[in-house]
């Protein structure tokens, strides 16, 4: 994936002249020291991150952590005090007003927490807003707005006013307005935070559905770690204006790296977060014969009989493997076996589990790439270290 947006050493101090504050920060001072010495508020303190094209990039943090400031710096609603923001390699911090307007009209659009719709305009006129600012002709922008409204499922509400719509529907209008400009970067600032829980879940699913076809680069600001896990392909966690942890949802839960991040990960439903690939182990060869090899967990137990292309032919019971080792005869094959894809969540793996059968992880071609131990799965779900002897604790 190519890099769409790259932020390098971004600082934001809310002050007319941030030079002294930047000096304190550069010499290792933090947000509180700047506030004590100068009375200036630091929004961002040396943030660097890189957003790949097509990512659903979540910026997560508590209030005051600088996450919204970061979002607003990217389209320069907040002027950065220092640092670079590279959009496809071009730094947008030094752009003059006209060039910045061009970027805002064509490259970056935004969805707001409280929708920020124009109450005096109809839904369709709200959706047309960005195109109107850009100077698109009236029939053309009406056509485009109708198209986008039907994508978000609001075609029949086009000629209503925003106050006639429910919160979820209003945010769909906000989303449609952002999509209408065809900008490839979408900033969503706490976009679902003002919605009630059921509607929020619905909107999250809707966003995932839209994203699977639109493939925008989304920068999503949230204070809700569950939301970040559900939507994100990558998550950046912020605290006190600094980036404290960045990575994929699974890697962050696996290795929080600090007590601050660990506090968020504690309540996570691990069975729904982790997939088979993250828990599987290398298949160990348990028996080798003329007809193929039997592989399974290194600790023992039942295994899979593989053909020459490492495809699964069937399972072999624990007793049969022992027997084969002792006698040298080929083990008896049972056709029943459990195989899942690498992206299967553990909760779904558990549904397939059958006592006495090994669980294998296969790629698209049916090739066995790993084996799943029940003990390892339980350890991952319980957030405990995996037992070494292969027996459940």
């Amino acid at each position: 994936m190519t890099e769409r947006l790259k932020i390098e050493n971004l600082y934001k101090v809310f002050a007319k002249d941030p030079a002294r504050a930047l000096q304190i920060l550069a010499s290792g001072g933090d947000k509180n020291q700047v506030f004590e010495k100068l009375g200036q508020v630091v929004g961002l303190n040396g943030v660097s991150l890189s957003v790949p094209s097509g990512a659903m990039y979540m910026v997560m943090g508590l209030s005051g952590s600088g996450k919204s400031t970061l979002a607003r710096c990217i389209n320069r609603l907040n002027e950065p005090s220092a640092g670079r923001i590279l959009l496809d390699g071009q730094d947008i911090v030094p752009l003059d007003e006209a060039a910045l307007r061009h970027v805002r009209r064509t490259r970056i659009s935004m969805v707001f927490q409280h929708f920020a719709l124009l109450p005096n305009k109809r839904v369709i006129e709200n959706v047309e807003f960005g195109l109107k600012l850009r100077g698109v002709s009236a029939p053309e922008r009406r056509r485009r707005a109708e198209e986008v409204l039907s994508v978000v499922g609001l075609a029949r509400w086009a000629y209503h006013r925003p106050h006639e719509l429910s919160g979820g529907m209003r945010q769909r209008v906000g989303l449609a307005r952002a999509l209408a400009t065809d900008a490839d970067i979408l900033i969503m600032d706490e976009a679902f935070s003002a919605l009630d829980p059921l509607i929020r879940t619905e909107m999250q699913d809707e966003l995932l559905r839209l994203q699977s076809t639109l493939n925008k680069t989304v920068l999503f600001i949230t204070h809700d770690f569950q939301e970040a896990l559900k939507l994100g392909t990558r998550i950046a966690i912020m605290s006190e204006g600094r980036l404290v942890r960045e990575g994929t949802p699974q890697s962050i839960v696996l290795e929080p790296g600090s007590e601050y991040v660990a506090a968020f990960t504690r309540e996570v439903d691990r069975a729904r977060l982790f997939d088979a690939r993250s828990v599987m182990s290398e298949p160990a060869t348990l028996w080798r014969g003329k007809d193929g090899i039997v592989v399974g967990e290194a600790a023992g137990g039942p295994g899979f009989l593989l053909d020459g292309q490492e495809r699964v032919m069937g399972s072999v019971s624990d007793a049969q493997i022992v027997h084969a080792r002792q006698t040298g005869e080929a083990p008896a094959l049972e056709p029943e076996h459990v195989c899942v894809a690498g992206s299967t969540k553990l909760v779904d793996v558990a549904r397939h589990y059958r006592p006495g059968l090994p669980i294998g992880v296969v790629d698209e071609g049916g090739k066995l790439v790993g084996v799943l131990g029940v003990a390892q799965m339980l350890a991952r779900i319980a957030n405990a270290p995996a037992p070494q002897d292969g027996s459940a604790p």
Partner: protein
Amino acid sequence: MIDADSLAIFPIDQWIQDGVRWVALNLRPLFLAIKWPVENLLGFNDHILHATPFPVVVALTLLLAWRLASVGIAAFSAISLIAIAMLGVWNEAMTTLSLITTAILFCALIGVPIGIWCARSDRVWSIVRPILDIMQTTPTFVYLVPVVMLFGVGTVPGEVAVVTAAAPPLIRFTNLGIRMVEHEIVEAGLAFGADRRQLLWEIQLPLAIPTILGGLNQTVLTAMVMSVVVAMIGAEGLGLVVLQGLGRLDVGRAAVGGIAIVLLAMMLDRITQKMAEPKSKGASPLLEAVRHLLRGRTVGDRFTEETIPAAAKQPV
């Protein structure tokens, strides 16, 4: 012990008089330039209002009040006008009405742009604000002194005084209305790439209109009061009726003028107040009213009322 009067050693009144005289003499072209458009527009309005037959004025007022405000206010307006005619001061009332309508036009022309300018620059507002404070705390007839010195006496100088007194509320409310527009909506405008002009016309002004109309109501009432007071510098109209009544100790005549003034003021207040009230949430009342006036109900409106299920109309 020091006597208060002994502190009055500077001939301040003399200085001011000299100053004003100097201004009147040397800046005469400026004041003539100010007077010219006022004189012409006032003359035009005055002519129209007097030339229009009485029933037509009543009918037009009825229609306008009905469309801008409500049926009740329309009926009240028509009855007020008929009552004024019955009091025998119709011509004077039309003169006063022309003073007020002209003042509204000038105030809108001057006040709204200044208000916008104030809203966009804190520095401008910090200069304009104390001036407005002074203008609004000054008793209305104190305006008359400089006006007489600079513009002379009569109806046209009177109109200058009316405009000067009535403009401040509109400036204040325009500034307030624009500054009160929700921050996130302004941010949305910027985020989608609005320039300053687009921000003003697409977002700030439309959303500020209810507040601006509230200011217009204040302006109309101030203009009403002032149009009576300027009778003291020789302006014609209902104020002159009261002044004459007082001068001749003719209580009946003064009362007739007073009653006509009250009726006219209530009529104008009710209509402009109703305009400023948000009728349907969101839609700016003036634009909506004008739209209704021009082409009746729009297609979208019909669509709205037929298709919204009752549940969807509940506030969220």
